[in-house]
């Protein structure tokens, strides 16, 4: 078969994909562009004069924490630079997550469900499905980019800034989509594909963070670094965007090559014969859930452990900075930020907790997948109740969250303690992420509540996480009414170690989580099982 024949039918499949995502695509575009517009527009009100802008620049250039999170600290002598700096993280995360999830949804998830088989038996080429997925995802990214270009000129950014910013972000999304397409040829399950895609994204982010903090060429090893190499307010060079497009093209060639080497519904690696008998650990619903989740948990542990070590080590360099820079130390003391390290750790702990909450939602979301494909019915037709079956999945997911919180905390705490030689601070850092366990439990509780009463609405779990992420990252910038913050669960958790631990919110959150869980299970007991 010629490669070009493989694309026959792409148009029809593209229409199908757009039809299926007719709510999702506008929701993503409006959500991302809207959040971006409001946070960018809000910047203008925060700085009255140039002196305040300069103060912001001074603070940021000294803080590797914000550099690690946001990007290169350039052009911070103007409001335009501050807008870029404050919004990078949001757009980059949103567009990359969108690209990964959407491609995996339209490729492997379809193939896994057997729907592709039906489609491919008609006059549709081997690559048509992948091409349609890529075009649908790429168009969504372009829509977001265009939306940015249209809307951002009404913020402190200029028209040209907005154009380059939008183009860079759209191309970054297209790059991630092409990358996910490659992953979809290698891995068999949609969940593995999206998990691997998100892990790669995390690695890219960390590589760029290291490069920006050290201010060296490491950034060029990460496509996120390329997108930010446009250095919009200062140098204004659009050419790194081309790098993203070239990279995407190269990845597409690889994806086509890989796809031609594999069979339908198979991965590249042939499936090996396994054990004829089940191990003793695989004897009940908990064993089953563990078996299904352990691979993903291992991958996430490695990624978050590394992230933790990175954060711990960066914290050290901050310590040095404060020591070497009496002016900064004086400034911090004067502004009441006596322990900048604590503030830094508290910020990063929140980021880690939000990431792990993502894992929690992802892992707990399994209960819906299992039910839709009919495996829950198989288990529940035996003497295992549906509540027990669901609780087993949730317990293993919860255990995974606990493990990840510990791994990330220990990664940063131990590396900090080793490098600085400050064991007590190291210990504090090690267990700081655990503070967020009740908050994550509440998020999972929302998911279970939806799953129990209206399984088609299980995705609100992700919506709540998106809300928490916006509040957590941009809450200080967005000039939102007070009551909005009260809805944020994470906002109620003490920002340990910057704030003292207090039991009341933690106990309250635990109680809310338990209530949500119980309510969800009540719904589950009353409804039909698919």
């Amino acid at each position, binding site marked *: 078969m010629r490669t070009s024949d493989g694309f026959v039918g792409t148009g029809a499949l593209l229409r199908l994909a757009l039809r299926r995502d007719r709510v999702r695509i506008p929701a993503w575009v409006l959500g991302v562009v809207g959040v971006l517009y409001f946070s960018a527009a809000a910047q203008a009100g925060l700085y009255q004069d140039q002196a305040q802008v300069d103060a912001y620049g001074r603070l940021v250039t000294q803080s590797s924490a914000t550099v690690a999170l946001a990007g290169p600290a350039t052009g911070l002598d103007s409001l335009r630079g501050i807008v870029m700096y404050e919004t990078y993280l949001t757009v980059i995360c949103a567009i990359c997550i969108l690209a990964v999830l959407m491609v995996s949804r339209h490729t492997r998830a379809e193939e*896994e469900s057997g729907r592709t088989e039906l489609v491919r038996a008609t006059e549709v080429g081997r690559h048509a499905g992948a091409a349609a997925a890529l075009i649908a995802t790429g168009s969504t990214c372009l829509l977001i980019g265009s939306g940015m270009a249209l809307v951002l000129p009404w913020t402190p950014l200029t028209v040209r800034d907005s154009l380059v910013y939008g183009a860079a972000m759209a191309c970054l999304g297209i790059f991630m989509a092409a990358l996910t397409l490659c992953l979809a040829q290698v891995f*068999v*399950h949609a969940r593995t594909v999206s998990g691997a895609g998100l892990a790669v994204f995390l690695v890219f982010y960390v590589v760029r963070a290291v490069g920006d903090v050290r201010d060296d060429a490491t950034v060029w090893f990460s496509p996120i670094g390329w997108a930010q190499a446009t250095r919009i307010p200062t140098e204004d060079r659009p050419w790194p965007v081309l790098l993203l497009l070239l990279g995407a093209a190269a990845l597409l060639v690889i994806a086509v090559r890989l796809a031609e080497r594999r069979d339908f*519904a*198979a991965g590249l690696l042939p*499936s*090996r*014969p*396994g*054990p*004829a*008998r*089940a*191990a003793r650990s*695989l*004897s*009940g*619903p908990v*064993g*089953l859930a563990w*078996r*299904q989740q352990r*691979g993903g948990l291992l991958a996430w542990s490695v990624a978050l452990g590394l992230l933790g070590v990175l954060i711990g080590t960066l914290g050290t360099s901050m310590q040095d900075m404060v020591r070497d820079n009496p002016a900064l130390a004086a400034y911090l003391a004067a502004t009441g930020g006596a322990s900048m390290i604590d503030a830094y750790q508290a910020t990063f702990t929140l980021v880690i907790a939000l990431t792990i909450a993502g894992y929690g939602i992802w892992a707990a979301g399994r209960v819906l997948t299992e039910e839709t*494909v*009919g*495996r829950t*019915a*198989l*288990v*529940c*037709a*035996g*003497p*295992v*109740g*549906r509540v027990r079956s669901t609780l087993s999945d949730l317990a293993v997911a919860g255990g995974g969250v606990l493990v990840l919180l510990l791994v990330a905390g220990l990664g940063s705490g131990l590396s900090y303690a080793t490098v600085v030689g400050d064991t007590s601070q190291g210990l504090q850092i090690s267990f700081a992420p655990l503070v967020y366990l009740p908050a994550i439990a509440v998020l999972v509780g929302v998911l279970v509540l939806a799953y129990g009463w209206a399984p088609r609405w299980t995705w609100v779990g992700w919506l709540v996480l998106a809300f928490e992420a916006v509040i957590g990252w941009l809450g200080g910038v967005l000039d939102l009414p007070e009551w909005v913050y009260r809805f944020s669960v994470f906002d109620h958790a003490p920002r340990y170690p910057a704030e003292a631990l207090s039991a009341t919110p933690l106990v309250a959150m635990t109680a809310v989580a338990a209530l949500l869980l119980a309510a969800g299970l009540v719904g589950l007991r*009353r*409804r*039909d*099982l698919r």
Partner: protein
Amino acid sequence: MDAVIAVSNLVKRFGRFTALDRLDLRVEAGEVHGFLGPNGSGKSTTIKILLGLLRADAGDVSVLGRDPWRDAVRLHEHLAYVPGEVSLWPNLTGGEVIDLLARMRGGIDEARRAELLERFGLDPTKQCRSYSKGNRQKVALVAALSADVELLVLDEPTAGLDPIMAAEFQEVVREEVVQGRTVLLSSHILGEVESLCDRVSIIRDGRTVLAGRLRDLRGASRTAVSVRLARPDGLAELAGLRVLEEVDGEVLAEVETGRMSEVMAALAERGIESLAVHPPTLEELFLRNYDDPAGTRHETGRLASARGDQPA
């Protein structure tokens, strides 16, 4: 003895769509009960209600003397199920799935497991993602058939099996019945139902249209005859006989239930040269109930007689 499955006036709605509309089903202990109906008639829906996976909107349902919705877990200790669409965990092997499902129910008959794997020709070391539909079905069958239970609920279990495996399956089901098990077999394959089942229930649009002993159902239905007569005159006016066609003096006709001797006497008067009598096959019974899509021709008389001979 109490019925193993007793369902009456079962109603199930999905939103505004009524999938089951006052359905009746009765399965006695120790029988193989055929559960027939065209696609979308509500067989799988009924079975999922029997398992307590779906909730009935109205009607009485009792399985092994229990209410499946309230008492699902304890009920499931005594039954095994093979779903119509078998979906397995792609990263487990077939052998692992069989063991897992068996252990969740408390144990497995090792000898039976090995024997069934052998007879179905199933390789237990393959990962489920590489199994075909038929092989996934075999995994579910081995798990269900090696369980020590009173009732087997099988939803179109041979839909993906090749003819040799389907024959092996029939053999295994007969052994299960000898062991004293009861089987509810939903199926499309009429030959299979004919050779396995004692009694059948035929449903249509969520309603039972025919139920009873296969033998009685045949007796209760019109019988086809083909006859060659010396003087084939006045056949059209003959009460109890409906002429379907006439080819070269060979008359194909249907004889109404209960008028066989009357019709035979009338035919004998016209000089029978040759005669063949065909009792209705299950296929004919089945098709007769479905050949009018609008459902206008309701043969209530026959229905009543078929229901009447159900043991109460």
